[in-house]
C-alpha cells in the first residue's frame, strides 16, 4: 500500500469533483458528452489504482466494464442520439452561472461534512474520497434540477451513476460482481429507454424542453 497510489486516488477524486463542476456550468450539449466520457475515464483510472493497491482482481473487471460501457459505448450512443435529434450545436441558456457555482460550493461543504463521520469508520485506503463521491453525486443531482432539456438531464443521471460507482470502489472496494453487472446492464437499458423517450418527446412537441411535459392535457 504505497503512499503515491493513495495520492493518485485522491488526485483522481479531485479531478472528478472538478469535472462535476465543469458539467454543471457547461452550456454546449456536445461538450457535456465529452466530459461524461472523461469522467468515465477518471473512474476507470481510480478503480484500476484501487485494484492494484488492494490486489482485488474483480475490481479490474469493474474497470474494464466501466471503460467499455461508459467511456466508449454510452458516449457513442449519445453522439448518435444528438446527431439524429439534430441538437449538435444547441446551446442551453443557464440561469446565472456564478450563483449556481456558489450554491455548488455550499453543496460540496454539506457533502464533505456529511461524509466525515462515515469515512472515519471506513478502513479503506482513502477514506476522504467518500466525501468527494457524495459531493459529485449531489452536484449531478443539482445539474439535473437546473437543466431544462432532456439530453443534459440524461447525462446528469449517468454522471450520478459514475459518482456512485466511484463511491463504491473507493469506500468499500467495490460491490459483488453480480451487483456490478446488474447495475451496468441497468444503465445500458436506461440509456436505451431514455433515448426512446427523447425521440417521443421531440416528435410530440418538436422540442426537447421537458417543461412541455408539465401540462397534462392539450389546451
Amino acid at each position: 500500500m504505497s503512499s503515491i497510489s493513495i495520492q493518485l486516488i485522491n488526485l483522481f477524486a479531485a479531478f472528478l469533483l472538478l469535472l462535476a463542476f465543469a458539467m454543471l456550468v457547461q452550456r454546449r450539449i456536445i461538450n457535456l458528452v465529452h466530459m461524461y466520457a472523461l469522467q468515465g475515464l477518471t473512474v476507470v483510472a481510480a478503480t484500476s489504482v484501487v485494484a492494484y493497491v488492494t490486489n482485488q482482481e474483480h475490481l479490474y473487471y469493474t474497470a474494464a466494464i466501466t471503460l467499455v460501457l461508459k467511456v466508449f459505448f454510452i458516449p457513442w450512443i449519445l453522439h448518435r442520439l444528438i446527431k439524429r435529434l439534430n441538437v449538435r450545436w444547441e446551446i442551453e441558456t443557464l440561469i446565472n452561472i456564478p450563483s449556481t457555482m456558489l450554491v455548488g460550493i455550499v453543496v460540496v461543504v454539506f457533502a464533505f461534512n456529511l461524509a466525515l463521520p462515515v469515512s472515519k469508520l471506513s478502513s479503506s485506503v482513502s477514506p476522504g474520497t467518500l466525501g468527494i463521491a457524495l459531493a459529485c453525486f449531489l452536484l449531478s443531482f443539482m445539474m439535473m434540477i437546473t437543466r431544462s432539456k432532456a439530453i443534459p438531464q440524461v447525462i446528469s443521471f449517468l454522471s450520478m451513476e459514475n459518482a456512485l460507482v466511484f463511491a463504491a470502489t473507493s469506500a468499500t472496494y467495490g460491490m459483488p460482481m453480480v451487483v456490478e453487472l446488474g447495475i451496468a446492464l441497468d444503465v445500458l437499458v436506461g440509456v436505451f429507454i431514455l433515448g426512446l423517450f427523447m425521440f417521443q418527446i421531440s416528435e410530440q412537441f418538436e422540442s426537447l424542453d421537458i417543461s412541455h411535459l408539465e401540462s397534462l392535457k392539450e389546451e
Partner: protein
Amino acid sequence: MSLSQFLSQIFATLAALLIAPLLLGWVNQVRAWLANRSGPGIFMPYRLLHKLFNKESVVADTASPLFRFVPYLIFGCLLLASAIIPTLSTDLPLARAADAIALVGLFALARVFIALAAMDIGTAFGTLGARREMLIGFLAEPALLTVLFSSSLIANSTALKTIVQTVSQREFTIYPSLVFAAMAFVLIFLAENARVPVDNPATHLELTMIHEALILEYSGRHLAILEWAAALKLFAYSTIGIALFLPWGITDGRSPVQMLIALAFLIFKLAILGGVLALVETFSAKLRIFRVPEFLATAFLLGVIGMLTNILLGT
C-alpha cells in the same frame, strides 16, 4: 541588518527591476512568433522605457496633485511586492517583513490609487477603465486569497517564505488541493495582468480596454514608470506562482554563488512560464466584459474547492 543581508536584498530587487521588462518583452516576442510574425525582440520594453523617459510629461489642467504622485506610489508598491516575494532566496530581510495577505493588500493599494488617478482627470475613458478595474479587482482578490490559503494550509503559515521552504524541502507528494489552486491562480493571473481573455494588452483605443484606459492620460516619464510598474506586476505574479507551485531552485542561503544559481533557475522558469502564457493568450479569445465575473467566479470556486479538498483529504 547585516551588510550581506542588505547586499543580497539589493541584488534580488535589482534583478526583479531588470528582469521584469525582459519578461514582458519575451511574452510579446513569443506571441509574435506564434502569430507568424518576426516580433520586436525581447528588449523592446527597454527601448520603450528609454523613449518615454526622454519625452516631456504632459499633465491635464484639471489634474490634482494626486495625479502626479500616483505613478511613483504604484511603482513603489509593486517594487516592494517583488522584494517581499522570495524570488531568489528565502533568507532575505524583506522576505519575512510581510506575509501573503499583506502582499494582496499592497496590490489592492496600487489598484485603488490607479483607479483614483484615472478618475481624477474626469474623462469618460478614465472613469470607464477605473470602474472595470475595480470590478475585476473585487472579484479577483478573494480568489487570490483562497489560492494563497490553500498553500498556507499545507505549510501552516501565510508567510511565502515558509511556504516555499515547506514545499521545496518535503519529499515529492501530489496535493490535489494544489492542482485546484494552480488552476485558479492561472485564471487570476490572466485577469490581474490584463492578459487576453480579460483584456488585450496589445491594443489602444478599443472600447473594451481596461488597463490602457486607466493610463490613457499619462505621458512621458509618468507613463514610463507606469509601464515599468505593469511589467513589475507581471513579474510579481509570475514569481508568486513559482513560489507557490514550483519552488524548487529557490535557495535558502544568500552567498553570491547560491544567489546566481537561483537566478539562473528563476530565468529558466520565467522563460517557460512566459512561453506558456503566450500560448494561452494565442489560443483564447477575448471574453465579453460581462463574462468576466463568470471567469473570476470560476477562479474563486477552484480556490475554495482547493481549500476544501485539503481539509477533507489531508496529506
